[in-house]
């Protein structure tokens, strides 16, 4: 499962209280507020720990989420766009996070750039549904995935720093 640092970060994210998905007209606005509260707290905690690594925002009804995530490798910052739709079965099932610009570059991805999570993730989500929210998805899903995949993609030359391609080519 996740490493010690991830576990500590996750334990600090507040759990959500409202069991409602986007089809639940009455309760969804409350759940959406809780999602934002947990996300804001998580980002603030990351900033305080000097480990700020993503931003996320949604459309008005909270069904489509877009944002960016970044990864620091050898003092260089690599940034990627991320996106996902909330499935109608959320929060009983987790959304499939996509990093479209990495599509086709790694086998740990399904078509459309959806990241392929470890076999531990689905049971972990199921055991904690509906109290886990999108902040938990970032911490336990996308975070560990980036930590494993990005250094590997950089070492293979499949991900190149935006300001360094010229230098790299000149070497």
């Amino acid at each position: 499962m996740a490493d010690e640092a991830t576990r500590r970060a996750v334990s600090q994210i507040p759990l959500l209280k409202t069991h409602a998905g986007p089809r639940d007209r009455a309760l969804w606005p409350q759940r959406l507020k809780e999602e934002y509260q947990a996300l804001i707290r998580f980002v603030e905690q990351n900033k305080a720990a000097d480990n700020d690594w993503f931003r996320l925002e949604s459309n008005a009804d909270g069904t489509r989420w877009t944002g960016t995530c970044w990864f620091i490798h050898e003092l260089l910052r690599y940034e990627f766009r991320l996106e996902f739709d909330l499935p109608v079965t959320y929060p009983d099932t987790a959304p499939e996070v996509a990093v479209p610009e990495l599509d086709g570059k790694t086998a740990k991805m399904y078509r459309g750039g959806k990241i392929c999570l470890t076999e531990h993730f689905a049971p972990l989500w199921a055991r904690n549904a509906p109290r886990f929210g999108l902040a938990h998805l970032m911490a336990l899903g996308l975070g560990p995935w980036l930590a494993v995949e990005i250094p590997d993609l950089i070492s293979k030359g499949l991900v190149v720093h935006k300001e360094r391609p010229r230098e790299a080519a000149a070497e």
Partner: protein
Amino acid sequence: MATVEELKLRVRELENELIKCKQKQCAVEDAHSQALNRPKIDKMSAEVVDSNPYSRLMALKRMGIVDDYEKIRTFTVAVVGVGGVGSVTAEMLTRCGIGKLLLFDYDKVELANMNRLFFQPHQAGLSKVEAAEHTLRNINPDVLFETHNYNITTMENFTHFMDRISHGGLEEGKPVDLILSCVDNFEARMAINTACNELGQIWMESGVSENAVSGHIQLIIPGETACFACAPPLVVAANIDEKTLKREGVCAASLPTTMGVVAGLLVQNVLKYLLKFGTVSYYLGYNAMQDFFPSMAMKANPQCNDRHCRRQQEEYKKKEAEQPKVEVVQEEEEVVHEDNEWGIELVSEVTDEELKAASGVVPDLPEGITVAYTIPTEDTTGGDTVEETEQSLEDLMAQMRKL
């Protein structure tokens, strides 16, 4: 050396040329297939002649297997997911002369799909439902097709999906007779489960494991048999040591054989269910490593998370109570062998009592079937929850943007 701009231009030129070639090829193929296509057939004939596409199917009646084979033309089946299992399933139903097929898939055909059956390399880039309809219509023009190229799990599409399965029958406005889940992910299965529990729609679930060596089919009658949310996902144990299973650098493996077997088991169950012959399986597993086929039945879980599942269970209970008890006395002829010097006797693996008992949070499952994971009955772990807030959603959204 050419500049980047020149190369870009050249790429665009070649792309345009490719599109023209593809269009030309399609036009030729269409003209060709129109010349080859047989006319539609109004009524299935049992006549045994080379030109009758239904003669071998209608022979099932003469042999006493099926009472009324023509009835197949009155049924509508929705296939969700037209991949390795779904495409073969759709082809089998098309060849059997099903009345109407609804196909749902958001994906495109890729060359990486060519280790599976049905799709062909020249179809790469086409949407799966479009490519499938084209091929299937050529195989049997008597079948009606309705295709939807979208992901059923998103809000808007899900509403449309619910509408089509409740109104997309052969006679517009009537529900479909059966939904077949041939998808490859948990979200989509749960979405189908949600829709079917709400509508009281009978469906069959199918799946192949990510290591490609096991699979299963399952009949779900809302309120009566366990729905997909009644228990953690069931898996057919392949008896592979987890330590020897390498997952590095790959997400999923697939074999045309396992997918073909599962599609075959699925459609066999569909035919038995629709045409009323043989015994319909509630759950049938396939372990390819040992060639073992565990089977069982599982009742709906009264504590199921899905409230529509619980509502369907109430309705089912009421219906059962209203029905007069009919004692079914099955007379079984005892098979007596002249001699049995080795003392061979048949022993049932699971009794009905054991099957009935197999419901609950951690289901009691027969050998060879297990759950992917278990879920604690009550959350005991505490932990901080989000506080009450005076802030509106708009405030929170703005705050998040400002961070």
